[in-house]
């Protein structure tokens, strides 16, 4: 099968200028008015010799840190800016969604903006007319179709914008982090639509995102860009694991540095220890370990729950564990510090990187204190049954189910 996109040796340089000014004096600034500033310039490679192929129907995630060249690559693919060298052969119509709602005009009505935006995205008038009802339906703003866009809430604008984009019929879709906005329900709807586009309609997608979970869900393959070069490519989860490995910062624990103001109860300390009480972040999969948690009660409250959530390296929540603090009768003991240990059973988590989130809250009422990345947890494979499946995504949790053979 011929690739639908061939990216061959693409480079892009920008000239950056430096002004030579070791120090500044008034005399200098006056005389500089009359003579041109001395500037030295330097070529900066935003992309350097990037080469890869995309097959029809494939969805490719592009990941990398800020400034790795992801957006520049998308801009070149969208023909917004030309490459400095190299070429791209495309065998399909490319539609780029570097932003949702490009060209939306606040003074025009929703109806008018659907046509304007659709047309800027490259849809034909008849195509828009054909899909008009479906677009309106998907956006859920039919009541406000003839209201100027400036009176829409930002969420409504976003829904309308995405609805138009969802009906693009191009063979290749280039999508830049457009889903990082909007509420959870809307994000879910978008992801559903995107999965439908890539998996059921067999269209080709290039997707840039910082949300590894989304890349993993949507894309079969991924490439990792680093300083303008492809540093790793392959199956999405392999690339994401690689990316997480190189960016994995060991976070040994949490220690409160400054007394917070206005918090009734707050977490003061957290770290992981093995069964002998030695602090570490790395554990074998068949090893037990404990989370040591301390918190301080400043103003006693009732019905407080202390909970933790373990998250995988895609940021997905794996499980929650909590304890009810009512048994401690903290409301009677006044200002006091408490210590907990949470014992994690062995052979629960599969080898990977995890992080722990912790929160003190009154269920369904309010969050008293929360810490997002309390400490990192690294489960090392020391010969589990899964070690032979390296490179395969086998999930996050070991489940020791009972297998019984029934009578033949």
């Amino acid at each position, binding site marked *: 099968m011929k690739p639908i996109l061939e990216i061959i040796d693409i480079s892009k340089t*920008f000239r950056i200028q430096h002004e030579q000014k070791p120090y500044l004096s008034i005399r200098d600034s006056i005389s500089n008015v009359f003579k041109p500033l001395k500037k030295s310039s330097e070529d900066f490679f935003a992309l350097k010799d990037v080469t890869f192929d995309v097959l029809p129907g494939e969805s490719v995630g592009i990941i990398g840190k800020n400034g790795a060249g992801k957006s520049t690559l998308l*801009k*070149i*693919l*969208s*023909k*917004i*800016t*030309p*490459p*400095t*060298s*190299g*070429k*791209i*052969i*495309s*065998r*399909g*119509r490319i539609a*780029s969604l*570097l*932003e949702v709602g*490009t*060209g939306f*005009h606040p*003074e*025009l009505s929703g109806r*008018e903006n659907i*046509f*304007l935006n659709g*047309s*800027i*995205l*490259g849809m*034909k*008038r008849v195509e828009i007319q054909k899909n008009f009802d479906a677009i309106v339906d998907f956006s859920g703003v039919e009541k406000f179709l003839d209201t*100027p866009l400036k009176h829409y809430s930002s969420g409504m604008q976003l829904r309308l914008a995405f609805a138009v984009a969802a009906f693009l019929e191009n063979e290749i879709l280039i999508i830049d982090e457009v889903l990082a906005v909007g509420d959870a329900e809307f994000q879910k709807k978008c992801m559903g639509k995107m999965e439908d586009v890539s998996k059921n309609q067999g269209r080709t997608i290039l997707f840039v995102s910082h949300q590894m979970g989304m890349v993993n869900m949507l894309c079969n393959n991924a490439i990792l860009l680093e300083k303008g070069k492809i540093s790793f490519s392959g199956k999405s989860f392999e690339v994401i694991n690689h990316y997480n490995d190189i960016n994995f910062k060991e976070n040994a624990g949490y220690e409160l540095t400054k007394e917070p103001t206005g918090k009734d109860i707050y977490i003061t300390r957290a770290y992981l220890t093995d069964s002998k009480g030695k602090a570490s972040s790395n554990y074998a999969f068949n090893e037990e370990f404990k989370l040591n948690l301390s918190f301080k009660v400043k103003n006693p409250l009732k019905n407080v729950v202390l909970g933790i959530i373990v998250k995988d390296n895609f940021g997905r929540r794996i499980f929650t564990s909590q304890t009810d603090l009512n048994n401690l009768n903290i409301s009677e003991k006044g200002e006091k510090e408490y210590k907990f240990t949470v014992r994690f059973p062995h052979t629960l988590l599969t080898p990977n990187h995890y992080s722990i989130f912790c929160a003190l809250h009154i269920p369904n009422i309010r969050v008293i204190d929360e810490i997002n990345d309390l400490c990192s947890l690294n489960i090392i494979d020391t010969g589990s049954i899964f070690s032979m499946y390296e490179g395969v995504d086998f999930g996050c949790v070991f489940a020791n189910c009972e297998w019984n053979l029934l009578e033949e």
Partner: protein
Amino acid sequence: MEYEIRPKEKLNLGLAELWEYRELFYFFTWRDIKVKYKQTVLGFAWAVLQPFFMMLVFSVFFGQALNVPSENLPYPVFVFSGLLLWNIFSSGITAAGNSMVSNANIIKKIYFPRLIIPISSVLVSLFDFLMASIIFIGMLLYFQINIHPLKIFFYIPISLFVTCISTFGLGTLLAALNIKYRDFRYIIPFMVQILLFMTPVIYPVSILTHEWLKYLVALNPMYSAVTLFRAGFIENPLQINLLLISLCSAILLFVVGLYYFRKTEAYFADLA
């Protein structure tokens, strides 16, 4: 369908591509026209009222007070015929000149032939021209001007054509320059004012006593446009040499504007 994206090498006009995106002309023009008169009480009437009031002001000060001659036409008709074309030119180059900067958010995010934006700006001023023409026809009837149908059908299309290519040429040139050197944002209004004095809108060329002044005015492409437009109503002989100079400068402006725009457009997204 297979195509390549590669570094910009040779210049082409890309007419086929423009044709492919023809619907965008409509949408951009339609957007600008709609937005221009949004949230105004009088709406499209402004397209008519603006030149009408300008005509009144000029008629009072230049026609009545200063007694500027007007080549056998009533002064209001004379000045309005000039204003009709002048407004296409002045609002066209102002809008086109600023169009790339004001649409920067779009050109940085999506590709389409960049020429569509300044061309649409010129189309908007043509729309205003059509609206204002209604007043002009009314004035021709009111003042009972003798018209020569044959001459009108010959001269008016030529004069509109000259207006369009010079507006388009200067507009695209300014658009391309403005995106790189934002100084043009301040130069454009100034330039429009100077050019108004260099165009025989409020006065006929015949009152220029120095010969070199006539040639200076003829360098302005709008000289031929305005003169040819009035030729349908005035019996005076045309000054062919001045007209030719002006026509050449219109064509030159068109070619230079288009060339410079095409040459630099690939980098607009980097500069915007």
